[in-house]
């Protein structure tokens, strides 16, 4: 169970992508998502794959890891693609009873498949190349204008990073409690649904108790280290936009424009 959590976790490194400011990466990820959704033609699809390849190289993350992040949602992607193949109208290539496959449907389905995979793979890059703390402080800075509206941005970002810090600890704890209850004869995979749900009480309750206890101790520990909210806090590594951030933004905007251009060029589809 703990192992699943390693998917999408930060891989320390010094690649170009690693060294970008987290704010830049957050905004560029957002831009990339829009770009993926705007990708309409075959030419821009090929361009998108090329971009993904460039980004993976820039991040120096093994391609294997990137696609492992995609794996869990492959069934969803395939079902969506299939629905498109059968339900989009166009020139009929093959039909049987009420099922028919059209050239347009085939293309739409295939495009969707590629776009969704690219989307997840692209988004996984930011989590692989950015530590959770950097991500949280990037988010904090981006949302900083909301502080004027008395929205507790830095406290929220602190809460977020502590939650992320404790996920693996609690996952480990969960494993231990499951084992302990199994040793007392618990069964989790048999019986009616109601029984199965009931079987999880002896696991969930101790987990909650433990989380509360940890939260209580953590409160003491951070108080001892003079924490009193975001007011007046400084950073070990303050975020600083550098030349490479501006370069990255220009590159992304250019790529975005290219997609729009490739979309508008007349093509067979």
């Amino acid at each position: 169970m703990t192992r699943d959590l390693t998917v999408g976790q930060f891989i320390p490194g010094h690649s170009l992508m690693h060294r970008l400011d987290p704010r830049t990466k957050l905004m560029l990820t957002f831009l990339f998502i829009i770009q993926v959704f705007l990708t309409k033609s075959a030419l821009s699809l090929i361009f998108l794959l090329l971009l993904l390849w460039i980004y993976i190289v820039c991040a120096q993350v093994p391609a294997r890891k990137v696609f492992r992040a995609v794996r869990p949602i492959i069934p969803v992607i395939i079902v969506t693609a299939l629905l498109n193949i059968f339900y989009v109208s166009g020139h009929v290539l093959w039909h049987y009873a009420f099922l028919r496959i059209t050239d347009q449907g085939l293309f739409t389905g295939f495009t969707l498949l590629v776009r969704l995979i690219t989307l997840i793979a692209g988004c996984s890059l930011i989590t692989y190349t950015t530590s959770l703390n950097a991500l949280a402080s990037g988010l904090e800075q981006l949302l900083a204008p909301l502080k004027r509206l008395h929205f507790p941005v830095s406290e929220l970002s602190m809460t977020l990073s502590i939650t992320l810090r404790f996920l693996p600890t609690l996952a480990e704890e969960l494993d231990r409690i499951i084992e302990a209850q199994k040793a007392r004869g618990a069964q989790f995979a048999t019986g009616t649904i109601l029984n199965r749900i009931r079987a999880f009480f002896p696991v969930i309750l101790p987990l909650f108790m433990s989380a509360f206890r940890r939260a209580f101790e953590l409160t003491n520990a951070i108080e001892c280290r003079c924490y009193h909210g975001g007011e007046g806090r400084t950073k070990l590594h303050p975020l600083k936009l550098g030349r490479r951030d501006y370069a990255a933004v220009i590159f992304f905007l250019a790529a975005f424009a290219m997609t729009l251009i490739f979309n508008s060029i007349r093509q067979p589809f």
Partner: protein
Amino acid sequence: MALIELKNINYCYSPGTAFEKHALRDVSMAVDAGESVGLIGHTGSGKSTLIRHFNGLLRPNSGQVVYQGNDLWKKPNEIRSIRFQIGLVFQYPEAQIFEDTVGKDIAYGPRNMGIGQEEMNARIRESLQCVGLDNSYLERNPFRLSGGEMRRVAIAGVLAMRPKVLILDEPAAGLDPEGRHALFDALRHYRRKSGAAVVLVSHSMEDIADFVDRVVVLDQGSVALDGPVASIFAQAEKLVSIGLDIPQSTKVLLGLKAKGYSVKTEAYTVEQAEQELLRFLKEADRP
């Protein structure tokens, strides 16, 4: 014939990935009925992995787990019923407590066994008494007890299944001396009454030296030593080189031996060390 026997166990975590870790290498050990065995080794030596093989929580990559002459993994769907006979108490077992009264929490194991109400009540009282708590605890909220008491309630929850083999992983970790003494008294009581075999896991020799008959020392996933307590302590230097903590009495004898005196180092209690030291000092009178 041994009650439970592990034969040539190999176990590997996350095989085939970058995190691959060979945790156990060709480990064999046996526990006879009624015997008490200490399993020691430092952190990462494979103790925790090994005990999960005793009741089928982990399946060995190769090798056999034989309980009462039957291979555990020949009939995997019977493993659950075997877990009631091989009680496993994990480190910090109070983390498994979930009911709002002590009585209900202890009943969890026996209820999973399908035991009737009358026998259940008898078992709850018996195991509570065994860990040195009286019946007034039955209706109390376990989360309001002291750390040592919670620990004993959790252990009572396993004892109520009346296991023939009781395995405990660091049962005294984090307890104060009083809690530790109460806990070991409870374990002695259970052994005497039930005749169960006990496997006690620890990285501290001091804790288990006067509780067990035999010691198995694990080092880097393999059995380094296996024998009666005294014979293990006779090789005290080896224990130190493996990185284990030895009792102060043994350290004193070892220190004298290192200075070139001929002393035996197999003493591990104050009484034994006293005898050996008196012999050592008297020897000086007749060179």
